[in-house]
């Protein structure tokens, strides 16, 4: 056995103790789901670079680290000021539920009921009315055969997270903010398995923001799984803001299933983390749906950020638009693998995919792999991928007008990112992202330079 495979033994051992403590209180279906998940995980182990899906990302450093899940009550000492210090200003009004080290922090959350909208902690739902989500939890992950190792690990240790129930016909005006924080700066690396479940009823409408962050410099592992189900006519605008510590590991899977004529928009910002893997798996489960996947990944130093997306056109008359952009500096490495599957019979599919990457240093590297699989006729599909450096002609043009080289570079980088950032529909969030990007760029502090970015 390889050393990486041995590590699964540790998780197995921890699982025995964990599940024994919960056995009495949990329904049989949940217990069975956990046991099947840990069995699959143990059998398959951590993915290796020999697997097609993981060939660009080596998780050995993650598998080698001995993580510890935090115990109940350990996060009680975290205060609002600590949350603010992590850079998550609460500038946008909305419903907010905060989790620290994978557990609900009630004191930091403001989740009053609003017109039928329910935002609950998963732990709460599991202890009070588990049957309510029995049919939904894990449903979108595509069955046991397709669930990735990390999602299995999440399912095995599933404890807490957010459940968002949006009843049919409800239009939620305020954005719903789900905040997942990791608290410890020192000591044993911690591990959390946050789980998010969003159920959007027929013709409902909502904006959901998932934010991930942690204490700068802290080593921890966030293994997140998000499931979003849109019923017919639902409209969900989803944001993922990943700003983990630069020493942290972040693996996140978002599974989305769209009902008839529903519209799903995803905006993914992957800015932090040392080793990051984001998976988006989308499925059109009925006709007439629309899906937009936008993403921006920014990495510098030794950061590694990997994004895999799948858009599954399983039904006719669906439209998808995907735009992912990467900005890589230092020795950072980025990966974008975007698969679009047009299944037999999915005629009138209209799919566009674009990936553009900007390399700011000689040592930065990006792998871009568009994958189009078209099994239907009468479809419109196109994809494009470009990777390059800042345009020297544009740099000289700006400098020839009196703009310093550093400011000109930052201006061009901001303009590159602006195409994705500009589409953020929560103004305060957009400003926060712009601020965050500017802080990472030299020469862009100047207000006038900032104004010049559209």
């Amino acid at each position: 056995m390889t050393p990486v495979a041995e590590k699964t033994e540790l998780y197995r051992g921890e699982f025995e103790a964990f599940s024994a403590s919960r056995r009495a209180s949990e329904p049989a279906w949940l217990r069975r789901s956990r046991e099947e998940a840990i069995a699959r995980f143990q059998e398959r182990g951590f993915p290796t670079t020999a697997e097609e899906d993981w060939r660009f990302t080596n998780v050995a450093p993650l598998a080698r680290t001995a993580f510890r899940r935090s115990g109940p009550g350990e996060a009680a000492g975290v205060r609002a000021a600590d949350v603010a210090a992590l850079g998550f200003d609460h500038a946008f009004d909305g419903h907010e539920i905060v989790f620290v080290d994978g557990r609900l922090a009630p004191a930091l959350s403001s989740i009053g009921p609003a017109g039928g909208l329910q935002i609950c902690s998963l732990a709460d739902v599991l202890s009070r009315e588990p049957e309510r989500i029995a049919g939904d939890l894990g449903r979108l992950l595509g069955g046991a055969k397709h669930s990735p190792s990390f999602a299995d690990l999440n399912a095995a240790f599933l404890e807490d997270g957010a459940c968002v129930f949006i009843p049919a016909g409800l239009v939620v005006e305020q954005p719903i903010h789900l905040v997942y924080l990791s608290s410890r700066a020192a000591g044993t690396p911690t591990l959390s398995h946050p789980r998010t479940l969003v159920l959007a009823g027929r013709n409902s409408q909502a904006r959901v923001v998932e934010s991930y962050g942690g204490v700068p410099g802290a080593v921890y592992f966030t293994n997140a799984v998000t499931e979003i189900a849109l019923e017919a006519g639902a409209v969900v605008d989803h944001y993922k803001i990943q700003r983990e510590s630069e020493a942290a590991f972040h693996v996140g899977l978002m599974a989305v299933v769209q009902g008839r004529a529903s519209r799903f928009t995803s905006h993914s910002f992957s800015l932090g983390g040392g080793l990051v893997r984001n998976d988006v798996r989308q499925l059109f489960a009925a006709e007439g749906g629309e899906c937009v996947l936008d993403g921006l990944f920014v990495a510098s130093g030794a950061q590694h950020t990997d994004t895999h997306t799948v858009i599954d056109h399983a039904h006719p008359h669906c439209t998808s638009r995907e735009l992912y952009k990467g900005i890589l500096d230092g020795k950072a490495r980025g990966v974008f693998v975007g698969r679009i599957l047009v299944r037999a019979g999915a005629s009138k599919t209209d799919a566009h995919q674009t990936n553009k990457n900007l390399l700011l240093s000689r040592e930065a590297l990006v792998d871009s792999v568009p994958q189009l699989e078209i099994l239907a006729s009468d479809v419109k599909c196109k994809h494009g991928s470009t990777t390059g450096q800042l345009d020297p002609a544009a740099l000289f043009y700006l400098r020839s007008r009196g703009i310093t080289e550093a400011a000109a570079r930052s201006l061009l980088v901001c303009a590159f990112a602006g195409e994705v950032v500009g589409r953020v529909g929560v103004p305060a969030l957009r400003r926060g992202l712009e601020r965050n990007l500017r802080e990472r760029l030299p020469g862009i502090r100047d207000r006038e330079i900032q104004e010049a970015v559209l």
Partner: protein
Amino acid sequence: MLEIKGLHASVKGQQILKGVDLSVKPGEVHAIMGPNGSGKSTLAHVIAGRPGYDITAGSVLYKGQDLLAMTPELRAREGVFLAFQYPVEIPGVSNVYFLKAALNAIRKHRGQSELDAMDFLALVKEKAKLVDIDESLVKRPVNEGFSGGEKKRNEIFQMAILDPQLAVLDETDSGLDIDALRVVAAGVNQLRSPERAMVLVTHYQRLLDYIVPDVVHVLLDGRIVKSGDKELARELEARGYEWLEAPAAR
């Protein structure tokens, strides 16, 4: 204002400028003419400081200072302006706000107060008229989706805003129809002043019917082989460049 002596420049090991001498005084308009590949654009780029050129010999003094030692942005702040032959499209960067940042950087360098948004927009309104450029164009991303003529107008518009002391216009006439050429030339003529020097780099004499130069130089194979008044331009138009090639080969 501009003193170029024995300037030699090469790109990727290929010698382009082979000893250019040029002296331009405030208020003068000089035209530099020459066939393709003679080094006209290289000379314009070297003056503006475009990276990628090796200056192998010679000197360029601007207002008595070593121009070649300055970064492109410092040259701009000191009053050098290049109107590009091929203006660059910069998606995501606002033409007008980038220009405001540029102008205020230049004003600050000159010890002038910075313009606020109101004053700046008034200036934009005034200068937009000069080259008959649509104000909506001014607010779009830099040159993105502009026609060839609009790009050239935008260059002169930028020049009008930034108020340079030395303006180098690199083939500003190329690609313009006669109406656009008249508009651009009228804009340039209004910007002529006793304090400002201009260097027009052009392939054709046509532009010089509208912007009458004080001095015309012929650049051939990296050297200025002949200088004269505006009649020289007409002679070139009639006779071509061939009759000048013999001295260039010396």
